[in-house]
């Protein structure tokens, strides 16, 4: 069966699963993002849909035929009580370091070279064994070249970390090419801030 047929099949099966029809209560609460970025949530079921867009806006639903109507603002203290344990179990946000490269190469800029020892110190301090290294490029050159350069950049950082004593099995290396730019540019435009490795210590 090809993927498309499978997807169609799933779209027929899933509603039956969703309509498990046991009586329960589902509470959805939109929270302020830590970065202040305004996101939103759409809550939908068979009976309708509703948008949550303000901090602590919430909606309570009891079954799939229960129409989502007017959201209410939940008090922060009630929220903190209801979700106390889940809030306490939140992992520390991963820390991201940005390392920049000379155009078309996997050679670090002199400024970024100085950051490497800082990163090593941090990895040792938090005893991290879960480090993601992803290479990125700007939009100068072909897709294939940019995928290759991104991979070389990521590998270069992985090699340097390994030489400085970080266990290779702690590293996950990926190449993202031009797909996740920090700064949006048209094709063919050099952008130093996109020629980078994002190193995430988790």
């Amino acid at each position, binding site marked *: 069966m090809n993927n498309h047929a499978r997807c169609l099949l799933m779209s027929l099966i899933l509603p039956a699963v969703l309509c498990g029809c046991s009586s*329960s209560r589902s509470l959805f609460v939109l929270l302020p993002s830590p970065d202040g970025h305004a996101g939103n949530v759409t809550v939908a079921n068979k009976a309708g849909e509703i948008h949550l867009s303000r901090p602590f806006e919430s909606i309570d639903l009891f079954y799939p035929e229960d129409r989502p109507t007017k959201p209410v603002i939940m008090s922060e203290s009630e929220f903190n009580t209801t979700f106390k344990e889940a809030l306490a179990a939140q992992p520390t946000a991963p820390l991201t370091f940005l390392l920049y490269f000379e155009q078309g190469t996997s050679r670090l800029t002199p400024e970024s070279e100085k950051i490497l020892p800082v990163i090593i110190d941090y990895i040792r301090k938090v005893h991290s064994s879960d480090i993601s290294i992803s290479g990125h490029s700007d939009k100068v050159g072909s897709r294939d070249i940019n995928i290759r350069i991104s991979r070389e950049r990521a590998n270069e950082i992985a090699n340097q970390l390994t030489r400085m004593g970080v266990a290779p099995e702690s590293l996950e290396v990926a190449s993202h090419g031009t797909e996740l730019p920090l700064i949006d540019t048209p094709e063919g435009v050099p952008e130093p801030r996109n020629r980078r490795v994002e190193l995430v210590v988790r």
Partner: protein
Amino acid sequence: MYRGLLFLLFLLTYNCASVFGADSDSVGRLKTINGPVYILRGAEQTAAYLDMRIFRNDTLLTGKQGSTGIVFNDNSTLSLGPDTKFQLASYEFNALEKKACFVGRIRRGTMVYLSGLIARMNAEATRFETPAAVAGVRGTKLAIKVEGGDNE
């Protein structure tokens, strides 16, 4: 009414090929564990440990005094409170193949989710299903509580 139906259909048919994708790559790791926490993988239930790798289709279970927190490959984070049953129905994060999707099913308990790079790639790609509704999350932080749900 019709808008709701259309939205639901859209959510259900959204192309998240990972439901059938390779299950060999881990998609995240457990970063906090308090009290009893288990991973149900296929028919096998294992006690969770710190830095344990999570795979798509895993179901996470917490006991009455349990809670846990996960960091996913796209840097999104999820934490679960006590007496929670959460299934990672689908997860895909591959920028080069332009694949991004996150589908979670919470059957009972509490969860807090903070979105990451998947939301940056595709604002429509993240959703959480409860017995009563589906929440589509566009780049933000969301909490869900399901009471009196699945007790198996």
